[in-house]
């Protein structure tokens, strides 16, 4: 048994943290608020590709690290900590989805491009019906002479204006399947949605887009599996944001003196931060558990993914709110990074399902267990 990060994973995480801290400043995330969306600079994207990060969550056979979903999650966590544009995380999720559930030909065609950085990819699942996930998908692919034909709208598509490929969830017969759609394909239109953290979220309009049947991901559970992987990566991003908010507030509490003492020596401050720390540790434990369960394709994977997302989403929002409160007035200013994490945490907490929605998944799992 070993339920802590092995040496390779620790190294990957440490390298990512150092590199992102050097290459991407919070200042860039702040500037993006005035000129959205927040986009990855081309050189940085190329550097990440060179490091092999886009295959971090893929199997060795797929050209990846073979370290499991946890490797992708650790990178997503660092992206959240560094306030990095989301494109890396979307591409990690897309790569893992293809690696786990793609047909051999499609994998051979697409995975090398994705891992090499030449084909950013993202999932397109949600629709304007007020809920989340593959089960709520209404867009249906029509079978015809030229293969499948897709029409409809997808919203809250992450990193859509830089993606080269969309993995679109659509009904095919009774199932919800994943269909690869190129950004440049006929009938595809991308409309920005303007999120409060300036992330590149778009509406994807599909008007009679053609997809060859043979390109559909063959596994009937592919859409659910890909959505679970994406969910866990969003949770990881949130965990990184929570960690950053906690770290900056802890540092401030050590420095800021009022009444002749560092404010961190007041229990009103120190115990609030201790509570955030407890939640971060519990959240981290859930994140690792969910990743491991996905790797092992365990029956409780869905419930653990839901648990991680629900818990970490609330933890991240709470960590950012604690940061605002404990910084006092200064934490409420544009120049401090506190609000950048508050924006990201708030937005990601309701991305890929909010806490209440995920708790319903958990409740179904409990009903099943206790039946």
């Amino acid at each position, binding site marked *: 048994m070993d339920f802590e990060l092995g040496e390779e994973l620790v190294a990957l995480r440490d390298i990512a943290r150092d590199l992102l801290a050097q290459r991407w400043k919070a200042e860039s995330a702040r500037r993006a608020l005035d000129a959205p969306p927040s986009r990855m600079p081309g050189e940085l994207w190329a550097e990440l590709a060179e490091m092999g990060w886009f295959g971090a969550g893929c199997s060795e056979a797929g050209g990846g690290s073979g370290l499991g979903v946890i490797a992708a999650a650790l990178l997503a966590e660092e992206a959240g900590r560094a306030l990095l544009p989301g494109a890396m995380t979307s591409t990690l999720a897309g790569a893992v989805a293809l690696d786990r559930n793609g047909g051999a030909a499609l994998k051979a065609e697409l995975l090398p491009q994705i891992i090499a950085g030449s084909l950013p990819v993202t999932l397109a699942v949600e629709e304007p019906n007020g809920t989340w996930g593959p089960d709520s998908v209404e867009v249906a692919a029509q079978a015809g002479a030229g293969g499948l034909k897709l029409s409809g709208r997808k919203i809250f598509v992450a990193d859509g204006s830089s993606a080269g490929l969309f993995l679109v969830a659509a009904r095919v017969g009774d199932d919800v399947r994943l269909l690869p759609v190129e950004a440049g394909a006929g009938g595809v239109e991308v*409309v920005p949605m303007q999120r409060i953290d300036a992330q590149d979220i778009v509406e994807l309009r599909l008007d009679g887009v053609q997809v060859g049947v043979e390109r559909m991901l063959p596994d009937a559970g592919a859409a659910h599996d890909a959505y679970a992987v994406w969910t866990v990566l969003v949770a990881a991003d949130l965990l990184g944001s929570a960690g950053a908010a906690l770290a900056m507030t802890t540092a401030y509490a050590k420095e800021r003196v009022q*009444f002749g003492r560092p404010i961190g020596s007041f229990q009103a401050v120190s115990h609030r931060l201790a509570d955030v720390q407890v939640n971060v540790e519990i959240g981290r434990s859930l994140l690792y558990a969910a990743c491991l369960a996905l790797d092992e394709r365990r029956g409780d994977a869905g419930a653990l993914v839901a648990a991680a997302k629900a818990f970490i989403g609330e933890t991240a929002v709470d960590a950012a709110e604690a940061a*605002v409160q404990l910084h006092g007035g200064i934490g409420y200013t*544009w120049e401090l990074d506190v*609000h950048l994490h508050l924006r990201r945490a708030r937005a990601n907490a309701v991305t890929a399902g909010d806490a209440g929605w995920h708790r319903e998944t958990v409740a179904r799992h409990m009903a099943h267990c206790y039946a």
Partner: protein
Amino acid sequence: MDLKFSAAEEAYRLRCREWIAANAHHAAAVAKAADPVQAARDWQRRLWEAGYVGLAWPKAYGGQDATLTQQVIVSEEMARAKLPPLINTIGLSILGPTLVLHGTEAQRRRFLPRILSGEELWCQGFSEPGAGSDLASLTTRAVLEGDDFVVTGQKLWTSLGPIADWCFLLVRTDPSAPKREGISYLLCRMDTPGISVRPLRNAGGGVHFSEVFFDSVRIPREHLVGELHGGWKIARSTLDHERSGLSGVISLEGSLERLWRQAAAGGEIADAVARQQAAQYWIELEGLRYLGFRALSDQLAGRQPGASASVGKLFAAKLRQKIARAALDNAGPYACLTKKSPHVVGKGRLVAGYFDSLGYSIGGGTSEIMHNVIAERVLGLPRSSGEA
């Protein structure tokens, strides 16, 4: 024990309501004006001329000598009609009462009527980068040279900084004294040489506060309020002089009603979690309302309301945040779009309200300080090495 208003009070309310209705178009014009500051000044003057500003103040200085109940009636009617807030609110709520209590007769005659009419807008220079919750540790220095104080230092969290005509500020006049005993209270024209103002952008992207820098700014000695080195107690007396909070209740009422309507279909909220939550907020809001009535009754009867203002402030801040958070949560991902997004719900007001709500447990005394005040002054617990 009763909550009824007398017939005369009800008649007063009616006249107030009629006046508001007759002047609603002037109120509406404020937001749309080309020069919104001038429009807001004009609106305040119009209200003052009608007798609806400075109700508690002595007639000698432009006030109305009105009863507390009349004040409550006017603030309720103004909040209910969603009239624009008075632009000179800081002067009205903080400096005015201070001068009435501690100013010289000359200061009162000079300043009070112009606060009421809006002719002179005031900003406050209390907080500093190193003096927030621990306000008494402020370091802005004032040295008496001849008949002038010469002031150097930096103030933070100043509202209206760029448009104010005057500033009331706390300065350290005796650095060798214990920290609460070397502070003085000064009044200063904002166009005095040596003052510069830098607007601060807030987390929501807007501008509300400024930093104000004082570089050898000369302030005539006649603009000292109260005793030299006696400024701390003066400032403290108006920090404690908080309003009954009943107008805050009315603004929360609006937020709660919007929360309900957002979640309700056909009048009812089907989701039990959201329904129970909304009901809890109604309960807490009523608690806050009647707490306000109790505080008001104490004031009417000439009893000290004690630290009940801290109870109300703490509870109201939390409730405002809970309602704002619930509104955001209920709207899901749609609430997290900017107001420019075609998909946003509520024109971005949910996020703005949420960001705004977070400031309520910081400004005017943090919730941590309010807890200290309640623990020490109401429960009589020993100081936590900090102070209220």
